[in-house]
């Protein structure tokens, strides 16, 4: 006989009961003559502090039987195992669950990291173009529309990557009148350069920056980053409890380190083929990595700079080569004026 306390789930009033186990059933009785019998299968063990054994019933919410802890031995055959980690973990056991789970997690992360690299080259450029067009359109009033300047900018892209702006999948380069020092490759073969990156940079250095972005487009790094961001990134963010991902995430796609390295070595090769000195680019990277954070924060965030990257450009400099300027003086002047509006236009807007 075990003395216990019973709550019937109807009121909070406790009833003193005596408990006995017989034939897989729990027999309850009281001095008043009241008695009850509960099938062992209906019973479940509930979490309790060490001073008590607490039982509930699957068929009656609120029914609780509280017994002294030493009653456990007598009741164990009736109760079976207690749920510990959740039914799906208990079924396989903690250690096997950790090993399988760990392996699956590692595999999912690995596939999530590598798969975009395999998939990206097979994504039709027209799809990527649709995403890009929906995202950026014609850039509206942000865009610098000086025709001569635009021609000079396109010439610069053609200088480092001949033929790249031609054809349906050609690169579309645009200057944006936004006072941040940055340049980026966007989905659909768009390359945007923000105003300070044009007007405060030597055209030869801008050529290096553009070559880097062209490499991202050609190597399909943009599609790769898009897939990575929407696929595994979204999954992780979801379960990490952060559903409210911010709106900028799509435009500030981040490339992997190896993507960046590849774009750099492509850019160095492009500069070499175009016979443009890599030195101004190296100097630009050097200056940016040291510059005050306010000036170049955006550029640094999207293109993590290290002096090592600047060095690579520096090392590709050939002192015997006869480098040519990327643009003529006229073209350079036009480029610097790309965001300049004629007085009539200013009045209109």
């Amino acid at each position, binding site marked *: 006989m075990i003395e216990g306390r019973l*709550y*019937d*789930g*109807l*009121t*909070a*009033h*406790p009833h003193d009961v005596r408990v006995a186990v017989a034939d897989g059933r729990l027999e309850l009785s009281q001095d008043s003559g009241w008695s009850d019998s509960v099938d062992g299968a209906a019973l479940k063990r*509930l*979490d*309790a*502090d060490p001073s*008590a054994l*607490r039982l509930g019933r699957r068929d009656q*919410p*609120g*029914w*609780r039987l*509280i017994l002294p802890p030493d009653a456990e031995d007598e009741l164990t055959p009736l109760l079976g195992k207690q749920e510990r*980690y*959740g039914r799906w*973990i208990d079924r396989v056991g*903690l250690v096997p*669950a*950790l090993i399988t*789970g*760990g392996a*699956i*997690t590692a595999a*999912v992360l690995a596939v999530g990291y590598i798969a975009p690299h395999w998939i990206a080259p097979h994504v039709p450029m027209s799809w990527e173009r649709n995403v890009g067009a*929906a*995202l*950026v*359109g*014609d*850039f*509206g*009033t*942000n*865009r610098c529309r000086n025709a001569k300047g635009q021609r000079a900018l396109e010439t610069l892209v053609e200088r480092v990557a001949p033929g790249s702006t031609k054809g349906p999948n050609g690169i579309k380069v645009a200057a944006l009148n936004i006072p941040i020092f940055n340049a980026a490759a966007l989905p659909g073969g768009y390359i945007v350069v923000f105003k300070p990156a044009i007007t405060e940079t030597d055209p030869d250095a801008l050529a290096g920056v553009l070559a880097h972005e062209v490499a991202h487009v050609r190597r399909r790094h943009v599609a790769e980053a898009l897939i990575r961001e929407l696929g595994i990134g979204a*999954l*992780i963010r*979801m*379960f*990490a*409890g*952060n*559903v*409210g*991902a911010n*709106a*900028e*995430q*799509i*435009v500030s796609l981040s490339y992997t380190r190896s993507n960046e390295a590849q774009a750099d070595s492509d850019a160095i090769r492009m500069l070499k083929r175009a016979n443009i000195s890599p030195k101004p680019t190296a100097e630009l990277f050097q200056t940016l990595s040291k510059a005050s954070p306010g000036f170049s924060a955006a550029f640094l965030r999207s293109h993590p700079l290290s002096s090592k990257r600047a060095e690579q450009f520096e090392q590709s400099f050939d002192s015997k080569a006869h480098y040519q300027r990327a643009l003529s003086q006229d073209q350079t002047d036009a480029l610097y004026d790309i965001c300049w509006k004629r007085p009539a236009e200013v009045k209109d807007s």
Partner: protein
Amino acid sequence: MDALASPSAGDDARAIRFTGNWREYLPIAITNALLILCTLGIYRFWAAARQRRYLWSRTLIIDDTLEWTGTGKEMFIGFLIVIMILAPFFLFFQFLFPALMARGKTDAAIGVLMLFYIGFIYLGGFARFRALRYRLSRSWWHGIRGGSDDPGWNYGGEYLGRFFLSAMTMFIIYPWVATGLWNSRWNAMSFGELPFRANLDTEGLKWRWALVYLVPIAVLFVAMFGAILIGASLFTPGDGGAMPPSLGILLIGIIVLFYIAVPLMTLNWYAKFYRKAADATTLGELSFGFEASTLQWLGLFLGNLALAVVTLGFGLTYWGYRNWSFMVRHARIYGSIDVSHLTQSTTHAPGEAEGFADAFDIGAIGA
């Protein structure tokens, strides 16, 4: 015998006590952390259920412990439902906003963002209500549970309205907003057949709220006055008016002081708010109290931070434990309860779990 009186003084005789300890919780903390890591985070719902089952079972109220019956599965399903409802909206806005910005349609983009925030604030209020309702419906004592029959849609609207009124006055009327929301939330809740009654007013809270504005400004003025004095003594004519380096450091110091003063004063307000709110809330013949001072709250938060830093992140798994035991240790229950008249709750037991609250990162404190 049917009326249980809650003893009012003496620590061992307190009507609400926390009986757990961190060593006993350690196996739960370790296995939860491991399982969360090895399941891409999916286990966190089951981890939360385990944590609560432990914490509730170590919370003694008068003569019996609390009991948590919520399950990881139901929280996981709740989360999936919320994701299915919200994900399309998030995706849509994630594309729409940059698309409008890229086209230079800044006004439209800001309009869209405003709409987004309005929806977000409404859902935030709704989620807070639902979280409380869900927690009460899964919390049992003496075989009786709590709950609410109010679905919380109106509360979401009230929350949104009060938030905007408050924002329009630069949050000066926030004490009225917060107390009103506390009352609306708790007056809709019940335990068993007994309704909670909250009658919180702003008495004593207004002045503390004013300090949130006044202290940082005072700090700023005093520091600036000091800076001018020091600056004047350091300034020597003829050096071109360049700022001496010590003045620059002083300026940074002022800014740091300002950013410390604002959250400290806000904490100072919340400490009082929760003390008053508990006092103003009753359940039948039971009344409540909460006795944590501003310094004790600060100790909790700094302790949490330090623990996480010192243990290289593992301490994060103890935040839930520390927060709950803090709440219980400082909570008081007074009066008596007639257990034979405390009958079972007839409220609808919601099944959708806290998904909404978890999606908005609303934690245990204050719910």
